Each structure stands twice: as structure tokens, then as C-alpha cells.
């Protein structure tokens, strides 16, 4: 093959796990004696300090890895991800959005698990706000969503929330589930 170098580079780059010479040999249909110098060439090529990653030899195979010295910088990638929510946070937010004002007990009844921690996180992120106290024994706090919540989801107001009725109509096999009335969410 003409451009074996290119192919080996692509294989190592795209593989889920380190690629051994044996595996590379099967994939490229080339003997290991041909492949070894190519891998060495690649190692050399990416060893320069100009590169942010290099060809590491791990677990009996080859794999591209970021340069160790950059680790403190690369950690920031984790922290600064776009807004993502855990399933717990999303569930809690959904219940409050659709059923506000909602008390913690109502949320926990629907979710079936303690939700205090998640609610605190959402409050800290200013996605929830406290609407007051409910007129029942114990006077529990009632929660609703905030302006930041509307902004995050690009909603003008709560009427813009997808109605669960229309939503459920997307999946005919599920329509037996009780769709909520949108009006009730207010």
C-alpha cells in the first residue's frame, strides 16, 4: 500500500484501546516487520515538544496520549463543560417545572428517593426559587423555577414548556400513560 504511514496513524488514533503490532498487522494486512519501523517513525514524529500528544506504548500496544506536563491545564476541560445535568437533577427540575409550586415531599414521592441534595444544588445554581410556605401542617417550603431556568431552556414563560400530551403523542405505544394537562402545571 502506498500510504501505510497514514493508515497506521489513523488506526491508532481511532482505536478504543491500545493497538498491538499483531492487531495492526491484521488490520493493515501487512507483516509486522513492515509495521514496526512505521510505528517508530510515528513515535519520533510526535515526540517533539511542539506536539500536545504523543504515541505512547501502553499495555502491549500503541495509543496517542496527551503530554503529561499539560495535565493541570487539561483538567479544566472537565470543569468547564457545557451545561449538563445528572439524571437526578433533570428529574427534579422537571417535576418542579411542571408541578410548581411543589414541596420536597411531593418531589420525593414522585422520584421515590431523597432529593434534598439535588434540590440544594439546583438552588445554588439559581435554577429554583422558594415560593413560600404551604398551608398544611408542618408548613413545608414550596419550590418553583427561576428566571435563570427559563433562560437556560430558552423559554419565554412557563407556558412555553412542551405539553406532556403532545409529547406523549410522539410515542404511540406510550399514550396509555396519563398525560398531564398543561394548564395544571402553572
Amino acid at each position, binding site marked *: 500500500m502506498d500510504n501505510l504511514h497514514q493508515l497506521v496513524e*489513523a488506526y491508532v*488514533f*481511532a*482505536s*478504543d*484501546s491500545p493497538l498491538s503490532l499483531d492487531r495492526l498487522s491484521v488490520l493493515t494486512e501487512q507483516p509486522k516487520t513492515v509495521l514496526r519501523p512505521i510505528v517508530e517513525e510515528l513515535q519520533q514524529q510526535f515526540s517533539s515538544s511542539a506536539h500536545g500528544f504523543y504515541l*505512547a506504548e*501502553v499495555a502491549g500496544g500503541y*495509543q*496517542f*496520549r*496527551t*503530554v*503529561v506536563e499539560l*495535565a493541570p491545564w*487539561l*483538567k479544566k476541560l*472537565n470543569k468547564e*463543560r*457545557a*451545561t*449538563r*445535568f*445528572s*439524571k437526578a437533577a*433533570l*428529574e427534579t*427540575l*422537571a*417535576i418542579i*417545572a*411542571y408541578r410548581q409550586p411543589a414541596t420536597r415531599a411531593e418531589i420525593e*414521592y*414522585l*422520584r421515590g428517593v431523597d432529593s434534598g441534595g439535588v434540590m440544594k444544588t439546583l438552588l445554588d445554581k439559581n435554577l429554583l426559587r422558594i415560593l413560600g410556605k404551604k398551608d398544611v401542617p408542618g408548613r413545608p417550603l414550596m419550590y418553583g423555577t427561576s428566571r435563570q431556568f427559563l433562560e*437556560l*431552556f*430558552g*423559554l419565554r414563560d412557563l407556558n412555553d*414548556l*412542551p405539553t*406532556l400530551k403532545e*409529547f*406523549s403523542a410522539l410515542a404511540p405505544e*406510550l399514550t396509555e*400513560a*396519563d398525560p*398531564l*394537562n398543561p394548564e*395544571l402545571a402553572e
Partner: protein
Amino acid sequence: MAIQIRLDNFSGPLDLLLHLIKSHEMDIYDIRIVEITEQYLSVIEQMQHLDLDIAGEFLLMAATLIHIKSRMLLPVSDEISEEDEDPRAELVKRLLEYQRYKEAAEVFQNMPQLERDVFTAQFQFSDFMTDDGEDSEVPVGLYQLADAMYQLLKEKPPEVFHEVIRETLSVAEYIDNITDKLLERKRLGFREIFSNNYSRSELVVTFIATLELVKMHVINIEQMGDFSEIWLVLAVSPDQLSKLSPHRSLFEYG
């Protein structure tokens, strides 16, 4: 010409129609409607085993074709012929529009796709671990939000919501509604007694009210055949009916 066509190869009636037009070398702007209707119907006849939902959509198109055909056969009166649109126009427009997206779908199919033709780095951090706890996090959008709620409601029995769906609907009130309508019309289709956006509880109450009226021999129920419209017919005189009103409190269901 016998055509062997499997309907499940087509994504819908428009797809099938386009195929027939092409295989008969017709001009899409000048469809020979009689011929194409015949071809289309013969394909539909072969589809004995198709499930009903799909069949319905294909049958709807058959009806459209037959309708166009009949309009084409009507004599064109001179006065209005200028403004009269070709009966095929709407269909042609739909076919052309559909064809564009069908072709776009084929282009999509052939475009390099991530994880099929093209791959990104299967990256490994060196010498430090990432917080794997975050792996289960999902990107957020309105769909995800609504879906979260929807899944929760699916799992929970609806009794949680009885406090919100409890409306002040009384059977007596609905009996009055139905009898009021019957005083005007004498005969009502079953579907007509429901308001446009009935809730589940409204449906139940209306149904109970109907049964109550039958039990009281105020109305009779008629149906011509299986699955045909159910008719409610007044069985008493309007005078007798108005005498019922004072007793409506008897029917209060709490």
C-alpha cells in the same frame, strides 16, 4: 404488466407514487392520472397483510387519486376555466417537495458519518483520572426535561394527581347539558356530546350521564351497524323533560 412491489420498501404513499410515476416514465408535471390511479390501486390490493395503520395512510392517497381523477373527468365550464386550477396541482407540488427531501435523505445517507466513516480520537488522559461520576450526565434541552417528567409519570400510578384532576364536574350538570342539546336537535351523534378538548374526567362524567339518561328512559340509543355512529335519541316529550330538572339534585355524585 404485473408489478411485484413490497410496500415496506417504501417510506410512504408519496414514495410509492413517485416510484410508479418514474417506472412508467411519466412526466411529473403531467401525470396520466387514470393510469397512475389504476397502478396505485393494484399495488394496494396486493397488500393484504399490511398492518392497518400503514394501510390507512396508503389508502388515504388512493382516495386522493380517485378524487383527482373524478375532477379531471368533469366537463370544464368555459367561464371559470381560466381560474380553475389543474386538479393535479396540489399533488404535483407535494410530490416535488417530497422528492427534494427524499433526495436529501439519500445525500445524507452517503455523506461521511461520524462513527461510521469518520472517527474522533479515543482519547486517554495521561497520568490523571477523570471524574467518572460525570459520565452519566446528559446534555440538556427541552426534550430531555419533558422526557424526564414523562418517564416519571409513566412509572408512577396516576393516583398522585387526583387532587389536580378533580374538577367540579357533576353528573347532573352533564345530564342537563345533554338534554339541552337534545331539545334542540332531537338526535345527537355520540361524539357530539363531548366538548372539543375533553379531559379524562369529563369523558367519564359524560358517559355516566348518558347511561343515567338511558336508565331513566329519557333517551334511547341507536346504532345501525358495528362501529358505525352511535345516536342518542330523545324518548320523551320536551315537556316531560323539563319536569326532570327540579330533581337534578338526586343525581349529584358528591
